């Protein structure tokens, strides 16, 4: 079933756009240029962050962190290997990408841990960045319950990521 998603979305979007007389190819390449800008923008931070993440892992600190978090996370049904992703996800999108990429490379993208890491990335946003951008634009100083509510949403998403992966990939 999931084998069909990508090819059908690609062909379907082209047919739909052609039927509505859109400029199919120009839109695709303009969008791809926009995507290239995104990659270009995260390139320096991915290099810097993966350096730090690799050092952190090689020192053995990551294993200790995982071991400390293991009892609580195990009780919640979350793989302890994903602790690092949960810590950095709300703070930095590229750091989360770096940590999740490292977890997926170490455990395999199609393992339960790798899938959980991907779902955690896919179901959350860079909370603090978003709050800063919106409230900065609207000149809000008293943010009230925004941060607690947003972090509750993130935590729920992370727990749900582990649970849904176990549910859909037994």
């Amino acid at each position: 079933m999931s084998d069909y998603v990508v090819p059908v979305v690609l062909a379907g979007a082209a047919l739909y756009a052609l039927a509505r007389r859109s400029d199919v190819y120009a839109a695709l390449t303009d969008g791809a240029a926009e995507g290239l800008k995104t990659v270009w923008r995260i390139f320096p931070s991915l290099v810097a962050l993966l350096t730090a993440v690799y050092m952190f892992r090689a020192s053995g600190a990551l294993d200790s962190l995982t071991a400390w978090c293991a009892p609580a996370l195990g009780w919640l049904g979350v793989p302890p290997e994903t602790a690092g992703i949960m810590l950095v996800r709300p703070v930095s999108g590229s750091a989360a990408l770096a940590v999740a990429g490292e977890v997926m490379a170490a455990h395999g993208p199609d393992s339960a841990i790798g899938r959980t890491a991907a779902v955690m990335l896919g179901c959350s946003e860079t909370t603090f960045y978003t709050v800063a951008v919106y409230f900065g634009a609207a000149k809000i100083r008293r943010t009230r319950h925004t941060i607690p509510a947003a972090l509750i949403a993130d935590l729920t998403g992370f727990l749900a990521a582990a649970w849904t992966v176990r549910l859909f990939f037994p």
Partner: protein
Amino acid sequence: MDAVWTILTVTAVIWGAAAGRMGAVSAAALEGAAAGVQLCLSLAGAVCLWSGVMELLRRCGLAEKLAGLLRPVLGRLLPRAAANPDTLAALSGNMSANLLGLGNAATPLGMEAACAMAAGCGGRASDELVRLVVLNTASIQLLPTTAASLRAALGSTAPLDILPCVWVSSALSVTAGLLAARLLEGVWR
């Protein structure tokens, strides 16, 4: 970000020195930098392709259709903001761009709506504005293209097989965030 980088590297040095693993830490620094380049290059193809497809969908009017579908939901969720047609247009544009995963298109529209909603409230976030920001901090993307691109870059056989998991998790996350905002709005005045 300064804190994240500093904590990671300083901990690595202290921990590595204490555990006698400085050789490995030193090698890992350069390995990590190289891995960053490699990851970026292998991500580039998928990210460009998906950005192209989403841009195509936006140009042929799918974003407007989504926005139309979202209007009744927004009317219920943010009734005061939705009463103003300009703010409602910005809000529905923001949400539909979020659904398509077009962050570059979503943010300016969301900021426009936030500014309109914050007018005359003296720097204090209204209940509705908090709800809008919580909606934007929770991801409601239909196709989690970055997560899927990362899986593809690392050799997954079916990068998009996580779709149902992402949808259910996102729905639960957004619901929890909005519920929490509802419950806390009486506490945080």
